[in-house]
């Protein structure tokens, strides 16, 4: 007997609204349709009516989890248009912020994933560790969500106590290696729940345009930090973890390994951060021009296309967030899956509906 189950837009598991309608034959999912837009705020439209200083703050509101990458991407696009040279110290500060944000984002996701698998103590452990990352972000920027670090041409604040950040990151890496990552990657409960579930093949990942850890878990070994490098990533050593099976378990493993790589990147960036200015001066407009800018956000490629007519108000700001690219991959992932696995499969994307809807 076939039947249709509407789930959402308000969920028990996920904090953000979106709707998924699942068609089932018995317990097996045969088709699915998705509905987003419940958080639509018209941020692109707003950005084309505010000056670039105001829009830098606005873009940080695209996402409540990876807020820093959006203001940074917007600034990088404008800096590319204007040919603005960002001081080396500022580039290192941006790298540290971006990687701390990646760690906190991945840990948040890991906690949610643990909860979805029914592993409540693991959820608590993830959020306990994430709190330490939040403390570091707060220590640097003074803020816990919207860090306000980026400005066109550099950053607003320095990392005044790099040694404290370094010690904090080392403690986080130790905790990751000692308990969290082994639990996620070797625990029988996690494996039983996640191996072979929600598979996305490499071909499907490419066809649907999947990005970030979702794509990498399916064998698409792209990371823009390495493959279309920006800031000073090309001067830092790190590996890009890639999966083979494209299932929920591989998405866990890829993110777990990325946590360690981020720690490694931060240690290098802090160790080689040169003295010097934090920005290139006060910049309130850039010359006429246009540029695409892509960066590797925690969830994958964040794509911006900014057009300037030479005034202080951008004439077009296009934002395609990583989750916008990744959510449609739910369709091939859940086809043929057991209905009870649908929440876990959705969760394995690390979806962010706020930034999807903008």
């Amino acid at each position, binding site marked *: 007997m076939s039947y249709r189950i509407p789930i959402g837009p308000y969920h028990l598991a996920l904090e953000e609204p979106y709707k998924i309608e699942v068609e089932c034959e018995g317990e097996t999912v045969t088709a699915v349709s998705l509905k987003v837009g419940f958080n639509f705020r018209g941020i692109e*439209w707003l950005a084309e009516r505010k000056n670039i200083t105001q829009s830098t703050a606005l873009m940080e509101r695209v996402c409540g989890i990876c807020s820093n990458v959006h203001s940074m991407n917007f600034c990088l696009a404008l800096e590319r248009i204007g040919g603005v040279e960002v001081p080396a110290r500022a580039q290192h500060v941006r790298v540290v912020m971006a990687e701390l944000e990646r760690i906190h984002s991945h840990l948040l996701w890991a906690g949610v994933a643990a909860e979805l698998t029914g592993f409540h103590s693991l959820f608590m452990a993830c959020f306990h560790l994430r709190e330490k990352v939040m403390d570091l972000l707060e220590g640097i920027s003074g803020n816990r969500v919207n860090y306000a670090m980026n400005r066109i041409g550099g950053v607003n604040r320095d990392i005044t106590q790099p040694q404290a950040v370094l010690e904090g990151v080392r403690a986080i890496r130790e905790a990751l290696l000692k308990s969290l990552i082994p639990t996620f990657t070797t625990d029988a409960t996690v494996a039983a729940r996640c191996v072979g579930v929600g598979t996305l093949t490499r071909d499907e990942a490419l066809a649907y345009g999947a990005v970030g850890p979702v794509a990498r878990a399916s064998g698409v070994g792209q990371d823009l930090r390495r493959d279309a490098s920006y800031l000073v990533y090309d001067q830092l050593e790190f590996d890009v973890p890639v999966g083979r099976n494209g299932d929920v378990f591989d998405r866990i493993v890829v993110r777990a390994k990325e946590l360690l790589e981020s720690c490694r990147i931060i240690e290098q960036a802090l160790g080689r951060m040169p003295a010097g200015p934090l920005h290139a001066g006060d910049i309130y407009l850039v010359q006429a021009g246009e540029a695409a800018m892509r960066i590797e956000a925690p969830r994958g490629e964040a794509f911006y296309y900014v057009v300037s007519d030479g005034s202080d108000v951008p004439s077009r700001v296009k934002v*395609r967030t990583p989750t916008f690219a990744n959510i449609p991959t739910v369709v091939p992932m859940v086809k043929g899956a057991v209905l009870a696995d649908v929440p876990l499969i959705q969760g394995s994307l690390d979806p962010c509906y706020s930034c999807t809807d903008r």
Partner: protein
Amino acid sequence: MTGEAIRSRLGGLWLSRADGWHQGIELLQVRAMAGEMRSGGARFAALTVRPTDGAFKLAWHFDAAGELLTLEARLPAGATVPSILDLWPGADWAEREARDYYALRFDGRADTPPLMLRDGDAPGVFLDSKEGALS
């Protein structure tokens, strides 16, 4: 396939910029070129639409091994856009979003339902004047 190999296969005049490679094309070329991108192993990244002098400028962005390849075409007012949905399932949301924001119409799709808007909302919410409110 590398970006260079795909560019070579597609031919035409590619313009190098700081953000990647761009080629101006005729609107009707987009399907053939998007198909070549697909068989070359590229990834569809985004569709950028912007109003310009009563018409629209469209840019389809693809990633080829880290290189950004962009195809740009002018869409005259009132014209329709060839859909690439059958070639790139990932283009579905990009086309529906373009419909929502700029009221673009796509050929070759069974329908183009709203993405960010609700059923029944009028498309083209970004077409208001700079001074106007978001409808």
